[in-house]
């Protein structure tokens, strides 16, 4: 018997050694979008900026499909589609999953890349912004609003011009996907590519080349796939660029440029002194760092600021009071006996440095719901726009509370409170996670009524995760959630009146 092992064991070892290919988890591939409805009435939906883009922008007159100019375009398109490579087909499929979704993903990737705190003492680099959660909330909102407005204008023009898909004009066009009944002038994909890339380049100037390459590729898929001619793409490009310039013009004036507050004027603005704040927040990390964006609370809200600030959380229970002591005892108890499930929840919702931030997490949640429902590009853009404005406005409110009340983190008061996640370097009250998440989940609950309960559960858990992590009091969480829901409801009332059946 004994010699067997001499043969078997080396064989086992060799088999193990040579089976050494790595299995990397694949990204889930998205299916090409075939929208459930074309949303033909979207041209009459309300724009966010209240601008009549089509009357301000001089667009070239769309040639009729009988015209010589169009025939020439069509001939060139036939040639392009016949010479299509498999690499080009891959790109068509990639962008075909939905331009709004893809650019939202690209934004999330860029936010993740730029969500790295700069070294202490380094001068801010406007080319390479720190994409922290408040920055990200605004970035997602600007992108979504620009997409929303550009696509409403695009839909309006589409149904005015009513130019059919090239493949219905000429049977020679070699399409990859079946043509849709959506009129194709201007190309909505060109609109999305240009509006999105323009916004992203303004936010992340150092990525301009990368973003331009993606936008060029996105626009090219329109002709590679036989979905639109040159004039469809060019008009879309012009419209998208124009809408982006309007939205980013607004962004220049929204006071974000003051938010970093390098001279710490916030202490006088919020009148932080020993009388107003007896136990002030202090930085408890090394080296000491200024708190994040102290004047973000003064950035312009999307919704009426009086309505938003009506939801400003009240004064928190002061340090040392029985109510406070009971709450911090709860945090300490969690810290002492944190369950594995509390750890998991804390990690799951942490969305810390290097990630797309909590607002990005909610964009991913929205993406999944939108894809399940096969929404058109314009309906998708409107959903992101409602949600991301709610996220940003609730973030502004939360940041205002953070600096107005300037409340210490639990570990500042009780250093034995050990955390499961990083302690954010800014005041505790209220929780940003609770605010962002409740606002996002409330809006999504309106847009996807069948998911309302699950979304409530998710935004509740997202807020609870910060208490489980040991970095927030329960009153931070509950008041953040309450104001997030209130801001979400403001966006719902807009959604009920913007001309769209839900």
């Amino acid at each position: 018997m004994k010699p067997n092992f001499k043969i078997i064991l080396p064989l086992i070892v060799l088999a193990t050694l040579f089976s050494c290919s790595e299995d990397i988890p694949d990204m889930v591939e998205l299916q090409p979008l075939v929208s459930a409805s074309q949303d033909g009435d979207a041209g009459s939906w309300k724009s966010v900026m209240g601008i009549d883009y089509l009357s301000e922008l001089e667009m070239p007159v769309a040639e009729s499909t009988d015209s010589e100019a169009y025939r020439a375009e069509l001939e060139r398109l036939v040639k392009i589609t016949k010479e299509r490579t498999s690499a080009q087909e891959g790109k068509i499929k990639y962008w075909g999953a939905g331009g709004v979704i893809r650019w939202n993903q690209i934004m999330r990737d860029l936010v993740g890349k730029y969500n790295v705190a700069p070294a202490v003492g380094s001068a801010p680099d406007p080319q390479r912004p720190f994409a922290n959660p408040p920055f990200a909330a605004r970035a997602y909102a600007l992108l979504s609003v620009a997409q929303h407005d550009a696509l409403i204008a695009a839909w309006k023009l589409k149904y005015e011009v009513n130019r059919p898909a090239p493949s219905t004009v000429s049977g020679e066009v070699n399409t990859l996907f079946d043509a849709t009944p959506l009129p194709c002038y201007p190309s909505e994909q060109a609109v999305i590519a240009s509006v999105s890339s323009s916004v992203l380049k303004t936010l992340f100037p150092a990525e301009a080349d990368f973003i331009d390459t993606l936008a060029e590729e996105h626009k090219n898929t329109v002709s590679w796939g036989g979905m639109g001619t040159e004039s469809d793409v060019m008009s879309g490009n012009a419209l998208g660029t124009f809408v982006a310039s309007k939205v980013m013009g607004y962004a220049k004036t929204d006071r974000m440029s003051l938010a970093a507050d390098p001279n710490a004027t916030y202490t006088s603005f919020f009148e932080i002194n020993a009388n107003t704040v007896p136990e002030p927040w202090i930085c408890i990390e090394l080296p000491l760092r200024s708190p994040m964006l102290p004047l973000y609370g003064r950035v312009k809200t999307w919704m009426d600021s009086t309505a938003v600030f009506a939801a400003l959380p009240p004064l928190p229970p002061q340090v040392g009071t029985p109510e406070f002591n009971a709450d911090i005892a709860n945090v300490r108890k969690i810290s002492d006996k944190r369950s594995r499930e509390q750890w998991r929840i804390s990690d799951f919702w942490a969305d810390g440095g290097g990630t797309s931030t909590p607002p990005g997490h909610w964009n991913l949640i929205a993406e999944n719901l939108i894809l399940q429902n096969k929404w058109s590009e314009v309906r998708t853009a409107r959903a992101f726009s409602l949600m991301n404005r709610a996220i940003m406005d609730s973030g502004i409110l939360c940041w205002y509370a953070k600096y107005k009340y300037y409340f210490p983190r639990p570990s500042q008061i009780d250093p034995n409170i050990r955390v499961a996640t990083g302690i954010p370097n800014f005041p505790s009250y209220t929780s940003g996670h609770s605010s962002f998440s409740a606002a996002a989940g409330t809006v999504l609950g309106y847009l996807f009524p069948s998911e309302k309960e699950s979304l409530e559960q998710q935004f509740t858990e997202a807020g609870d995760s910060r208490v489980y992590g040991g970095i927030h009091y329960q009153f931070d969480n509950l008041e953040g959630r309450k104001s997030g829901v209130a801001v979400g409801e403001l966006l719902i009332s807009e959604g009920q009146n913007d001309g769209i059946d839900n």
Partner: protein
Amino acid sequence: MKPTKKNRLFILLLFLILFANYSWAQGLLDGFMRGRGNLVTALSYSNESYDTYFVGDNKTQNPNLGTIKTNSFGIFVAGGVTDYLDVIVSAPYISARATQGFMSDQDDFQDISLFVKGRFLNRSVANNATLSLMAVGGISTPLSDYIADSPVSIGNQSTQWDGRLIAQYRFSQGFFVAAQTGYIKRGNVDIDRGLEVSVPDAWDYILRTGGSYKKWYADAWLQHQNSRNGTDIGAGVPFPSNDIDFTRIGLTLYHPIPKFENFGIAVGGGFTLSGTNIGKSNRFSASLVYHFSVAAQSID
């Protein structure tokens, strides 16, 4: 139970020293065989710490973590099924903490390891020296749901398959040199943030030299481990996906406890010289060893 042959007893120990953490588990494996019916059991304690770590190749420190200190308690059993085949099992309980900042401590049972080692060549060569060749197959898998994706953690949650070859040349005077090379295949892990993460496979190389004498055993070793791919430590990067490389040296000593038949003490140290995406750690271990033989006579 009866004592095993004296000249074997002292050479069983080096694997006791360095097995309590996943990146140290290969220290379990030596170039000796237990012999049929012989068992070695050990309880070990080890202490590891580092205040400097490598991000990619760059040395760094984090004042918000200070020094990462790890204590491990392990149980270990190795037994000879035949003279050609050993089975080795170990399981550590580990606690880790950061001396600065507020990150929570971690403590739990880590990974259970099972190795099967077969000797397929054992030949006397010139001057009564012996050349042995061995093959090893092993698996280690988490015993608990410990947290893998954190700067303070006790392991990476990956189930690992280990295959390696060991060659040992032993002189008649007791002096030996051994070399081994292994491939560690690491399974993907699901981390708390809802991602499945690929944990890089690694090549592992160990050189060991020392002596086994009537009472004493001593060795010195050099280990180099090299992940095949992976990420650098960075904001948002899952820790289990890190490209971990290291070079370490260490020492092992064993001596029986006088008047306590079959008991011995092993001590050891291991020192990280260089690395990528790993702490520049020092590790010290001590083990209480008990060895005995079961039914060896009846089968002869």
